[in-house]
């Protein structure tokens, strides 16, 4: 993990938002910053944040493993998060998931609680289930990167994936 001067400056700015004896408060902003930059937070990312804030690495690891939104594994070029909370589940999100995997060539058979992300063989797409994405009336919904898509039925999957290349 190579941290650019720009990233370093940005991190310092975030840390500056908090009183000096409460640097720890900048943990989450820094983790988000790393994830935006590198797509995920690896082992060295955890160490970097801990060093930056004067924490023990376990303090940061606790956060990274607690939040499903923080990824410990590098995703594909486009990362898809399919909502599986009640409304979307009833609207058929599991069929949507299966369809996306089929079209994108992703094998989810190895997915576990501790390793929730599956990646297509060509590395173009990666996918995981997410909890409520806050659009219960328009399920099934999903996020591709930061783009939000509603009504993603299995039929709509092909057209959706074509937008990403």
């Amino acid at each position, binding site marked *: 993990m190579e941290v650019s001067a720009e990233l370093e400056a940005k991190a310092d700015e975030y840390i500056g938002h908090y009183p000096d004896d409460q640097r720890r408060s900048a943990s989450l902003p820094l983790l988000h910053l790393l994830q935006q930059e590198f797509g995920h937070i690896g082992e060295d990312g*955890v*160490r970097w944040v801990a060093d930056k804030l004067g924490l*023990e*690495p*376990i*303090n940061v*690891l*606790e956060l990274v*493993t*607690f939040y499903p939104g923080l990824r410990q594994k590098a995703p594909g070029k486009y990362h898809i998060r399919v909502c599986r909370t009640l409304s979307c589940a009833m609207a058929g999100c599991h069929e949507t998931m299966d369809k996306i995997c089929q079209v994108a060539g992703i094998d989810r058979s190895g997915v576990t*609680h*501790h390793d929730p992300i599956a990646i297509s063989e060509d590395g173009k797409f990666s996918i995981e289930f997410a909890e409520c994405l806050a659009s219960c009336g328009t399920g099934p919904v999903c996020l591709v990167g930061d783009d939000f898509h509603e009504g993603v039925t299995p039929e709509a999957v092909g057209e959706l994936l074509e937008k990403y290349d």
Partner: protein
Amino acid sequence: MSEEATVNVQVDGTWIQVPKGTRMIEACKQAAAEVPHYCYHPKLTSPGNCRMCLVEMGMPPRPAPGEEPELDKDGHAKIGWMPRPVIACANTVAEGMGIRTDSPLTRECREGVMEFLLINHPLDCPICDQAGECTLQEYSVEHGKGESRFLENKVKKPKSVEIGPRIRLDDERCVLCSRCVRFTREVVDDDVLGFVDRGSHNVLTVHPDRPLANNYSLNTVDICPVGALTSEDFRFQMRVWFMRETESICTGCARGCNTLIGSREGKIYRQTPRENNDVNSAWMCDEGRLGFHYLNSDARLTEPLVKDGAGHRPIDWPEAIRRAAEGLAKYRGGGLAVVASGRMTNEELYLARTLAETLGAAAVDIVKREGEGDGYLVHADKNPNTAGARAVLKLRSPGSKLKAIKKGIEDGSIKALLVLGENLLKAGFEEGTLKNLKFLVSSHLLANPTAKLSHVVLPGAGFAEKRGSMVNATGRLQRLNKAVEPPGDAREDWETLQDLNRAVDGLDGVGEIADVFAEMAERVSAFKGMSLSKIGGGGVHLIDTDERVPLLEREAERVREGLIVG
């Protein structure tokens, strides 16, 4: 807090008075109503996360304007009970509060919490080290449902994880009480433990870069209410219910941490700290805790030895005493010296002193043992009884006479030497110097080069194999108790010294160690009015020193801040 106001609290129908600010759980304890708990520990902060200490609570309702509060038959305002329970560990009492620790609501709460805790807990008590001293086991019997309604598969978690050089973790047994996390963070400032992941996958762990390796890590095993954290040293060695626990003190340094020695059939299996708020709080260092293994060593001397050509041959005790006494008496009146040890008890030191007095020894001193303190409990003085030696042997500067003794041996003025429990080759003496002696008698626990050079070798007893007393760095007089017998024919050192005294002065001496102490109390002013039985389990303050215990100072600070009960 004694000066402050007290409040009236009703616990299970009985009114008691407790200081304002007392935690509900402590008030219940004072009323002899023990509230079950996992996460609560008086020496640590109370996160209130285990929910086991839920109790029913009530307060007197505020009377309507112009109305007087309704009183019960004891004259206390009647209590309006709350429909929901509260945790007793993190809430404090208030005037007129009522607590029910045995009501149907309280019992139902405990049953529910136990059921949740047992959902994913493995049923491996028969092979679990904690069995027999496990609160999960105990509370299951006392407060559990007795049967499980859980039909699903238990969550699998990491087992037998090495989280530090001395600690092994079983995550499936962990109840996530966080006592260990708080101990390492709050007491020893080594915040390396944490919970990763979430929900039913939540596990205790360390970051691979930072294992739990501090010198106090084994305390986490003690405070773990279940069998999650186990000691590499003790696990699978002995079932706890077979062990006898003897109150004693650690002799690893001048702190004198209070301990329990767990032994069975003459063998020591573990040492755990015993709470003493004037010495070690509830903790002890790993080094001291594990520092008993030499007692089980193969190098232990088990019979008196006499020099025979190049080697030694065993002889019986009367013969050994006779030879030692004769050999020393030959150089009566300035021709001999005594090197005692700061690891000896007061009683042994006193008998060494009388022996030296009778023989007119040129000098008596101890060997200094300086190391480093750690700012918590470990003391820089590695002798457990320097303060006692100062008082008993009237030493102004312990260790300062060794040079003169060495010189005396070299110039031939000192011809005989009695060495008690010290290997002089590690204390600045050379083999050549000791070979200059006409007569060398020494007592030891383990075979060592000084023993090898001795004409008579007397096998001694280790700290857990004898009774006696010591004075720690803060001037507290504390007692050693005998947990196991010394190996073979080895004897308690005070008996050996007593026999040497008898052989030299021809008197009967005293009968028991308590009598030795009594005689010492008459002759050494610092011990005036004391007796061995008066010392008690927690020791007594004997000598005023300026020493403070850094760990206790910080604990007192946290008590003042209201963070912990203490």
